[in-house]
């Protein structure tokens, strides 16, 4: 049962200047994530969950604590790899910019809440999917296009739209394109920031079905930030509840939702309206 740890977070925190005072956006977050494990981070706006996601993905640097990741050898690269820690994991703070960029476009995915932030709006849908492969050196036009078509089908996008700009796609289609663009390099870990928020409910449902299938089939590990407990119940094995920058409760998804311990979790669960 003890296969390799993928991500290990220890006491991670980030502070920001607010007015002229420093304030912790999130603090003292610790957890381990294994391959294929889906973790939901829930809490209301301002609870620090999006900041945490950015720390995990090295888009922000930790002001305390650390994030360790199981960094694989770079294919076809002779570049020296920093020394591994005892657990075989590397502290992301020790990696070079170039190495982090490489991680971010091969082994990780990042699905933004607003597709515009995660897509390149001035190139076609197909080119959006091909971009990561091109960054890895793929140049053969036919192969790139073939991959783009395959992934469009996989995320149930109409392949006839391959040459359209993403701005002409609907909101749900843009999210699908963003997902395809991220998964084309077969990442092992995907970060998602409110991936279904802002979509119509019926579109949301179909997108959730797609995510659930992909995560299962591809054995993806994922960290999903959401304020929607139903999304957590549907997709996540485990969850982490945040309030005022702190993790107030974490555990197995059905345990946290059916037997919440912390006052705030109890409030969250009891506030959900079921139709």
């Amino acid at each position, binding site marked *: 049962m003890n296969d390799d740890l993928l991500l290990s977070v220890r006491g991670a925190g980030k502070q920001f200047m607010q007015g002229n005072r420093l304030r912790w956006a999130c603090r003292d977050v610790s957890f381990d994530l294994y391959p294929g494990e889906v973790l939901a981070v829930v809490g209301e706006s301002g609870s620090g969950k999006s900041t945490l996601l950015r720390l995990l993905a090295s888009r922000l640097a930790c002001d305390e604590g650390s994030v360790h990741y199981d960094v694989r050898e770079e294919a076809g690269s002779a570049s020296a790899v920093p020394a591994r820690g005892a657990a075989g994991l590397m502290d992301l703070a020790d990696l070079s910019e170039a190495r982090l960029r490489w991680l971010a476009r091969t082994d990780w995915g990042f699905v933004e809440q607003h597709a515009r932030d995660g897509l390149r709006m001035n190139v076609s849908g197909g080119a959006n999917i091909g971009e990561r492969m091109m960054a890895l050196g793929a140049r053969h036009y036919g192969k790139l296009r073939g991959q783009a078509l395959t992934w469009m089908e996989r995320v149930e996008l109409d392949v006839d739209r391959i040459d359209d700009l993403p701005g002409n796609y609907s909101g749900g289609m843009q999210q699908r394109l963003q997902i395809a663009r991220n998964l084309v390099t077969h990442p092992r870990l995907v970060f998602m920031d409110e991936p279904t928020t802002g979509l119509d409910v019926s579109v949301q*449902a179909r997108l959730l079905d797609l995510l659930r299938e992909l995560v299962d089939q591809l054995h993806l590990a994922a960290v999903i930030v959401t304020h929607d407990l139903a999304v957590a119940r549907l997709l996540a094995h485990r969850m982490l509840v945040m309030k005022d920058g702190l993790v107030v409760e974490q*555990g*197995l998804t*059905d*345990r946290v939702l059916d037997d919440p311990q912390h006052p705030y979790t*109890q*409030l969250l669960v009891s506030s959900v309206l079921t139709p």
Partner: protein
Amino acid sequence: MTALLEASNLSKTFTLHGRGGLDLPVFAGIELSVYPGECLALTGHSGSGKSSLLRCLYGNYGASSGEVRIRHQDQWVSLSGAAPREVLEVRRQTLGYVSQFLRVIPRVSTLDIVAEPLRRLGVAADLARSQAAQWLVRLNLHERLWHLPPATFSGGEQQRVNIAHGLIAGQPVLLLDEPTASLDADNRRVVVELIHAARERGAAVVGIFHDDEVREAVASRCFDVEQYRKPL
């Protein structure tokens, strides 16, 4: 013989923070061991904590104190203290559960819902589906329903989907929460036969059976949860 499931000094109290930290004690000091081939029936009045105990045994409710241990691949695992992925692994391989009400992923067909526990064990999709079909035939669920999500089914139909889903993986420990509650006599008889078959293959079963006739037919022993009830 080694037990497959044990609870020692198990207590459960709900603390309702929204009600000024009100404590609702459910039970305390539960000791039980369940052995291969037996069916332990939990008894007690409505509200005595039978379902809560079953949920604690499944790891769905946390233990307020004490421990739940399960024999998983020839080793004892503390279910009440295990990491989430360990609990999920124990459920996949060792611990099956039929809940009182069907709670499923919306929009998924009945056949796929029933096949899912086998898929999680790595069984190929076609094989898992054909086995799921056999379970649904056994439970008299009409074939025209197989490709529909069960959301619109009757209570009895949903319960049969639930039973097929809970039993298909053949785990060695089974927890059954009123599996026959909304079934007619014919289907109750099928479920009684299925529980007997599970016991014969050596499964340890813990169940809540409201129907006296069913309980007498399947249970080898009763466990009165009432005795462990804590006064309010």
